[in-house]
């Protein structure tokens, strides 16, 4: 028993200890300081040269968003094309898996495009090897890079503390402002009170090549040496010890699984994700894959501290996130290790914990730990079936996604947290009767409106979506969606929309979700829940950056104190958690009361 607890304590401490130096490295990458990975510079420069991009050309926040949305738009068509033409993938489809139907392709393309990886198909029977690599693996890299680039823009905006909105040409090193030698022309918007915030393509490509790629290579190789396949032959056929033929799906899995864990993507190579003995062969790989889930989300918090040179502020954010994480984690580990109350009543020993939907090599504690890890970040990979979790654990996984900012997805997790910071600053400001300021910038009505819209969008999408699904279900009782009756059935629908809106991708997989209703409704939720929460924080940060800088004084609200941490925590509890209380009462809480 104790070794299981040691296992999860080890995973958590090791992740945090790795995240601190990684955060420093990430800050150096974004600040263009010298790092060990500078040998990649020529490759990146070649990419920029061929693409006709000047990585030094700075962009306003609006241009950042334009570039981000344009390139995402292109990826959508690339994904649709691949998924709907699987019949023609030839030798890269050795198992002969069919093309996707349009509604399933739409859902899958969107869900991988938005870094969610909700899967309404099963990898073994639904995808060709070409799709696994060219669609899934590709999107898992670039969408994680997109999120990190958006985060880098907000970092840049928070760093802008010079008193004037833009440095004058002289400050930028132009000796002759009127032109001639050594003069860099003004970018669009420069000198008009608009702050320039780095180059989107530069942040994006460097996030991919300098951060995601090296770590993925290490993880993928480790997986391959522990028994995860990385091959291009089709299914293996073996004879079992009892003499029965057994087919085994394989393929280029190791490369894909590494980035799936690292980029908070979560879309498994095999249908059951990291519960599969080839996707997650042993306890060592489980440690590595689990650490990969929230390594970068935590590292980005520390990166902020290094980047802004406000390490204490980073520790306050980390503290708030960690307390929230532990509040979700501890009951989950307790209930999963305690076992299933219904099986205990039948007289079955529960020393192993609740084992329905779990693997023996991983155990109930590591499965509970993973379940919370994957839901507080927007990863969504699983190593146990969440549908079979005990009721309180099921609720904790949903709460993790409902808050969606405790560590959160790579890049976007911090953006969500940024919204809560802005609201907390505003409320604190009102409480002490001062104009709310954050990092020397006044927060006014416009920013608050954006922040509140983004904060309320998430509960709205989840609750309205679930209500719609219930309405359809009640009017068509024979529709056959639910794998479980009663309160747990309601939880299956609630979980699906929560997962979609949090861009998480895990599921109460008993739900029969490959139907036009679910494919299209969650597809729409996915788009809204990805791009609006990127646009909102980037806009707020951009607007704040172009405001006049007010130096700190005795009357300034300090944001690097535990008092402020408590304020942020309170905002998260009130806005995110309480909005969902009625829905949770109708699902997990009632199920808990009735089974215990």
């Amino acid at each position, binding site marked *: 028993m104790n070794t299981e607890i040691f296992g999860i304590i080890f995973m958590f401490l090791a992740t945090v200890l790795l995240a601190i130096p990684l955060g420093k490295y990430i800050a150096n990458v974004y600040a263009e300081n010298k790092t060990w990975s500078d040998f990649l510079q020529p490759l990146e420069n070649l990419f920029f040269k061929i693409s006709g991009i000047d990585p030094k050309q700075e962009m306003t926040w609006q241009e950042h968003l334009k570039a981000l949305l344009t390139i995402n738009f292109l990826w959508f068509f690339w994904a649709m094309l691949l998924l709907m033409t699987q019949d023609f993938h030839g030798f890269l489809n050795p198992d002969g898996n069919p093309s996707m139907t349009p509604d399933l392709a739409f859902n899958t393309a969107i869900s991988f495009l938005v870094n969610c990886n909700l899967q309404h198909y099963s990898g073994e029977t639904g995808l060709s090897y070409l799709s696994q690599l060219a669609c899934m693996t590709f999107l898992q890299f670039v969408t994680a890079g997109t999120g990190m680039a958006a985060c880098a823009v907000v970092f840049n905006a928070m760093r802008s503390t010079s008193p004037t909105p833009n440095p004058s040409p002289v400050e930028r090193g132009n000796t002759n402002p009127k032109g001639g030698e050594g003069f860099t022309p003004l970018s669009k918007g420069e000198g008009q009170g608009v702050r320039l915030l780095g180059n989107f393509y530069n942040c994006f490509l460097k996030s991919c090549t300098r951060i995601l790629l090296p770590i993925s290579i290490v993880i993928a190789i480790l997986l391959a040496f522990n028994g995860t396949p990385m091959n291009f032959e089709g299914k293996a056929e073996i004879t079992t010890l009892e003499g029965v033929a057994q087919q085994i799906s394989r393929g280029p899995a190791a*490369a894909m699984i590494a980035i799936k864990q690292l980029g908070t993507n979560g879309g498994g190579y095999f249908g*059951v994700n990291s519960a599969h003995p080839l996707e997650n062969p042993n306890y060592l790989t489980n440690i590595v894959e689990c650490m990969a889930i929230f390594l970068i989300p935590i590292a980005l918090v520390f990166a902020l501290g290094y980047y802004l040179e406000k390490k204490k502020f980073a520790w306050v954010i980390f503290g708030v996130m960690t307390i929230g994480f532990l509040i979700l984690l501890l009951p989950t580990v307790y209930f999963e290790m305690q076992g299933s109350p219904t099986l205990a009543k039948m007289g*079955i020993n529960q*020393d192993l914990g609740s084992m329905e939907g779990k693997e*023996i090599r991983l155990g109930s504690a590591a499965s509970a730990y993973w379940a919370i890890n994957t839901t507080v970040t927007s990863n969504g990979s699983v190593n146990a079936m969440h*549908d079979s979790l005990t009721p309180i654990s099921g609720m904790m996984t949903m709460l993790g996604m409902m808050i969606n900012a405790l560590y959160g997805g790579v890049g976007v997790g911090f953006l969500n947290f940024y919204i809560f910071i802005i609201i907390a600053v505003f409320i604190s400001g009102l409480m002490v009767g001062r104009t709310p300021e954050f990092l020397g910038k006044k927060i006014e009505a416009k920013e608050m409106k954006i922040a509140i819209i983004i904060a309320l969008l998430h509960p709205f999408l989840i609750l309205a979506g679930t209500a719609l699904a219930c309405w359809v279900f009640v009017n068509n009782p024979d529709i056959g969606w639910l794998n479980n*009756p009663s309160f747990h059935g309601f939880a299956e629908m609630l979980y699906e929309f929560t997962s979609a809106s949090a861009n998480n991708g895990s599921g109460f997989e*008993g739900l029969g979700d490959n139907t036009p209703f679910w494919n299209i409704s969650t597809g729409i939720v996915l788009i809204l829940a990805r791009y609006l929460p990127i646009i909102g924080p980037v806009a707020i940060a951009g607007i704040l950056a172009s405001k006049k800088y007010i130096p700190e004084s005795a009357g300034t609200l300090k944001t690097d104190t535990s008092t402020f941490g408590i304020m942020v925590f309170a905002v998260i509890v009130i806005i995110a958690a309480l909005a969902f209380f009625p829905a949770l009462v109708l699902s997990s809480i009632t199920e808990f009361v009735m089974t215990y």
Partner: protein
Amino acid sequence: MKTHIFPALKLTFLCILLFVILYPALIWSVAQLSENQGKGDLQNLGQAFTQAKYFQSRPSAVSYNGGGSGGSNKGIANPDYLKEVQARIDTFLVYNPDVQKAEIPSDLVTASGSGLDPHISVQGALVQVKRIAKIRKIEENKLIELVNQQAEKPLLGLLGTSKIHVLKLNLALDKFGEK
């Protein structure tokens, strides 16, 4: 928008070269050096054991079909699910009449997450010893010894679970009989 389309197209194309061709090719090449040349550790997939002379694997929602995978996805309070578990308990007790219900560990009556779990708990193997000893006419003590030999310890003795790889145990069991 217009100013971004062509750079974005070209950058996308280059990223495809890097992440879809070069990166997998690198991993594939290195994987060739591994024990199974990147073809996957196929022994690590659970197998169904239906004959009473073998140690049984866990129940599986996909009948150990390695061309797919899946858990039952049943909630713990689902009445149909509880009936299924009761049936598994009853079946187990019929085949293992010397075992008390309270000795059955939960892994033997619950379906795994993947439906392909290669392991059972150590207790899950020990509870089957009496049956197999009778069928194979081997002393119980020797079988218990065999099970304990085959038990895989937690990682470094510190992290994770103890467990039994069912296929390896059954292979060892067949060898044991030959002696």
